[in-house]
Each structure stands twice: as C-alpha cells, then as structure tokens.
C-alpha cells in the first residue's frame, strides 16, 4: 500500500491517481524557514510503523474491547497503514496559538433533573433503585 506513503506536499484523494512527486508548495517552505522552528529538512515520512498483533491486543485491552483473532490480524494491517499516514504530522511546525478560551461560570443552583426512574429506565439491570453492574474485582 505504498500509495499511502507519500512525500509531504503530496496528497492522495480517494478515487484519484496518487501524485507521485507533487512538489512542496513554495509558500509553505517560506512558512517553515521564516517564521517557524526548523524541522528536519527531509522529514522521515518513510518510517515504517509496523504494528504487531500484540500491540493491537494491548491497546484493545486498554480500551476494554475484546477482539477475536481475525479482528486483531485485520486491524494490525490497517493500523500500520493509517499510522504511517499519520507520520506526516512529524513536519508540522510549532505554532503559537493565542488561547481563545474563557471560563464560563455560573452559580450552582438547584434545578429539576431526571427522576430516579427515568435515569434507570435504559439500564439492562437494576436493583433497589440502583444500576447493577458486574463485580469490580
């Protein structure tokens, strides 16, 4: 699937023929050298990101999703493809972003919420007005 490992500046669009040697636009090079911290001259976009099935199992365990063996094998192949595409982020410059954030505060006040019955209505299992889950350990 080498069509997904293209030089920065190249872009593949579904259904289109990959541009094998699309040039990096000049404007962008100016961007990098003039105003931004310099990255490596030739970003390491070819770096393989092999994903072995054990890694898929580990992440699935962290995410608490069981996978069967077929899924593990399929995801390992797809993840390698997708992660190597993500490698193009390596050459993104650091940008000083002004924080456009303001805390939104309000006083705490008592309001009507859901009744206990409403809150429990979608639960597969309840007991004495509580959600019922599996044992924790």
């Amino acid at each position: 699937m080498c069509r997904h490992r293209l030089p920065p500046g190249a872009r593949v669009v579904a259904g289109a023929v990959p541009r094998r040697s699309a040039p990096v636009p000049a404007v962008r090079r100016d961007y990098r050298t003039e105003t931004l911290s310099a990255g490596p001259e030739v970003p390491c976009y070819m770096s393989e990101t092999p994903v072995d099935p054990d890694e898929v199992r580990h992440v699935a365990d962290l995410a608490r999703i069981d996978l069967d063996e077929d899924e593990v094998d399929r995801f390992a192949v797809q993840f390698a493809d997708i992660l190597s595409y993500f490698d193009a982020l390596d050459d993104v410059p650091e940008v000083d972003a002004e924080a456009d954030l303001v805390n939104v505060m309000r006083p705490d006040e008592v309001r009507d919420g859901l009744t206990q019955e409403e809150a429990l209505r979608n639960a597969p299992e309840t007991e004495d007005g509580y959600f019922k889950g599996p044992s924790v350990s």
Partner: protein
Amino acid sequence: MSLDAFITETTVEGDDDGPLAGRSVAVKDNISTEGVRTTCGSAMLDDYVPPYDATVVERLKAAGATVVGKTNMDEFGMGTTTETSAFGPTRNPVDRSRVPGGSSGGSAAAVAAGEADLALGSDTGGSIRCPAAFCGVVGIKPTYGLVSRYGLVAYANSLEQIGPLAPTVESAAELLEVIAGPDDRDATTRDAGADAAYADAADGDVEGLTVGVPTELIEGADERVVRTFEAALADLEAQGAETHEVSLPSVERAVQAYYVIAMSEASSNLARFDGVRYGPETEGEGNWNEAFARVREEGFGDEVKRRILLGTYALSAGYHDKYYAKAQDARAWLKRDFDEALAEADVLASPTMPVLPFELGESLDDPLRMYLADANTVPVNLANLPAISVPAGEADGLPVGLQLIGGAFDERTLVRAASAVEA
C-alpha cells in the same frame, strides 16, 4: 424500493404556530428525542430511549415543526458513506446504487427524496456537507459554538456542530435561525447566535463579493468535479463576484490532524458505553473489566472499534507527543492559515467533496481511502469555522457540491453567496 433513510419513523407534533409550522423535519439519530429511540446507528444503543430532548429538538417543537423520524447514519457519526450503520446502508435517491455520503446520509437522502421538508444532521469532519453534496441538497456546518450540542451524543466534541440540511439555501437558513443561539446547558455556545437572522440574506447579491479559492483543495480532486466547480465559480463571477487563488499550506496535514484528534476524543467519549446504564445485556460472568470488554465487543462495529483503538494508541504513553500534540499544532496552523486567507476574501470556495458519490460497498474495506475523501471538509472543523455545501451542478448525472467557508459567525455571508450559486 426504500432508501432506508430512517431508522425510526414517528410523528411528534410541535407547537401550533411558529416559523416552522406545517413543516416536517427529520432528525439524525444521534440527537436525543424524548420518548423516541435514539440509536446513533449502533447496536450498542439499539433500544435506548432518551428521557429528555436535545436543545435543538426543543427549539424545533417550539417553532412548530413536526418531527417525522430519526435518520440513518454511520455508527456514532464515524464514516463518510452511512454504510457503517448497524442498521444497514441508506441509498442515494439520485442513484440507488450509490451511497448518500455520511455520516448524516439518512438526513440528506430524506430531504432529497422529499421524505422530509428539512433535516438536522451533525458535522464533525464533514458529516453534513458530504451527504448534502452527494445527494444534491444544501447543508450548513455552523461556526463552533453557534448551535447547542446539549443532547447530541458526543463523538469528538471539540469539532462537532449540529446543522441543517434542506432543498434550498433559504430553507436551510430558516432552520438554522430556529436552532442557533446560546444555551445555558452547553457552555461552549456563544451569544453570537441570539436572534440572528439568516434567511433574509439569501438574496443572491454577490456584487463585489471576494472569493478565495485554495489551490490545495482543488489539486487531486476528480476532474469531473473540478470542471463542475469551475463552471459554478465562473457563474458567480458573471454575477459580480471577484475570485482569486489562495494557498493554505496547512490543509495538507488536515486529514491526519483531524483523525488523530477525532479518534482521541472518541476513545474518551465512548468510554461511557459500558453496558451498565444502557446497552445490551450480557451474561454475568467475569469481573467489571471483562464484562465491559465483552459488551463493547458486541455493541460496536468495526469502524468504531478502529477509531477507539487508534485514539487510545495516540493518547498512550510514548505516543501522545508524536500524534496528539502534533495534531494540535496542525490545528493551530490551520486556524492561522484560514485567518490570513479570510483577511483577503469574504469567503473561500472549493469542491465540497473531491470525488463523486461512491458505489455502495466500494470503500468499506479500505478505511484510509474513506478518510482521504474528507480532505476538503475536515479543515473547516479544525478551524471552528462555518461552511455551507450548495449544489453546483452535475457530473455524469451525479450531484457535485460547492463548499463555501466563511469567517467565524459570518453565516449571513455564506447564505448570501450560496444563494447566488443555486440561482
């Protein structure tokens, strides 16, 4: 043959009068409707019935609209074709062998086929604009913070907005008027949308309007799409608009940044689906973690699992700086590029989708190929900006959408410019 635009059909009458009295509205199935099943296109929520309405649904009802059903969608909004739905695909009413786009494919198909007058969708990376383009209708992705997300089941909450789909720019703008505006139950909403008027801007007057055309969003697009787009642009020029090329180098990294951020947020947002408060019942063996993992194995489809796992990976120790932090840098870079381009132009124009609608089943086995189709829409979400997709014409009998991107909270200019495109 049915299009399968709806997962659940219903009739919820709104108030007797209001700006949408007598009009039917289809609502995407990730927007909570009190007493009406809301599945998000997922087996995980197959029988979930929300105990409350989303703010936008309350506003629809107060405006006199009748909700006629909950529309099909890619599972939790994760897809570009509506094929990842646990309830099967929706067909494109223009050509039933093709997908309607996604993830709000049911909403676009319902409007295009006349099964609803108007529809609500949600747009995290193009999920309103893509199906609007593929089905030949109008779709608006509002500025982040214009429309309340209260009651929208979260996928990637820093990126998504609810917005309208409609047959015309003016009717889309009318629906936007109803749903826009601050909400004290969503602290990310802004005052900008209060009492805003959009529909009266659909006057087609583009005399002196400046339109920037980002070269990066044209390169690599299907030639037939580009030809249709350029003809629509020439028509705008004939009506008095001025166009010029602009360069947005950062968009070359937008798809990567979008997927890293969206997947990371998804891995956190979808942690709530543990089978305790809602979700399928499973056999009671094993401890909490084992039961949790089993419910999620059963309840989630492939694409949702993929995104949760990749998001978990991108946030995990040793990879956070390589993926998530760099994606945030790319997001800031994009915002700056858009600010600069919009300082020189009233709006930016591109094809909404670089491709014509896929055949059903064409892209399902190649997730990366599906992701790349979002190249022109995801930059807008990363930059928190508004955009509209308006029909630009047809190529090989299939609809082509033209996307207009505007400055934050400048939906009026988008409506005005788009109304000239459809004229």
